[in-house]
């Protein structure tokens, strides 16, 4: 492989890692915020959650 191919592979790996980490971080934030909203809603309306 040429130097440029090695460089492209290395930079692609780092960009992929940073992109994946950032995406999963934002996804986790969205998910946990939705779950908090759902739990808070069920706590404020206990009769609805019993049904």
């Amino acid at each position, binding site marked *: 492989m040429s130097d440029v191919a090695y460089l492209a592979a*290395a930079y692609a*790996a780092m960009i992929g890692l940073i992109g994946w980490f950032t995406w999963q971080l934002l996804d986790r934030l969205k998910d946990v915020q939705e779950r908090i909203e759902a*739990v808070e809603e069920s706590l404020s309306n206990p009769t609805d959650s019993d049904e």
Partner: protein
Amino acid sequence: MLLGLAIAGLAMVLGFVVAPSAKGFDGDSYRIIFWHVPAAWTSFIAFGMLFVGSLAWFWKRSEWGWTLAGVAAELSLLFGLCVVTSGPIWGAAEWGVPWDWTDARLNTYGVLSAIALFLVLSRRSQPDTPEFRDVFSGIGLFGFLLVPITYMATRWWQERHPCVTIGCEDNGGGSGVDSVILQIWLLSFLGMTILLIGQAMVSWEVQKCEQRLAELQQRMD
């Protein structure tokens, strides 16, 4: 985060089109340093945050210390993985082998990244108890000890990894690199540091939300 990525991206482009060839290296493969080295420096900042958070938990039983340790473990893993994936690719190009098991710098950094991986996986899989927090923080404190050892490894036991170039005694205590390369390097480090701060802020929010969710679920139970 976007600002940090943009600056680091700009540094990468400048590293390809502006930076001259480096002495002592054949071809263009050395240009990996414009992200590889700043990622390593940024990971040391993240391990420093892990040390502070772990110490705050051990010493003061501080909740913010525990949150900081969790944030820092994830960021240490991210930047550590960037280093241990890009390094072997460069090694394959420059040395002909991706990893040299006799090189202290490679092995200590590998252990450091493995510690970050262990901390992240254990934090996600184990129940949040004071005992677990103690073990986690103890490993976090131990892990930080490897940072100065890793930094000094090329001076104490240099095998294959290139020598320290900033403040190297062989260079009269200054920088042994071309000034253009050094400026692009520092620009990239600035970008990675801004990226780290942005990710730390989002990760902090995630950790606080997860703690709040656990409290709410306890109330429901």
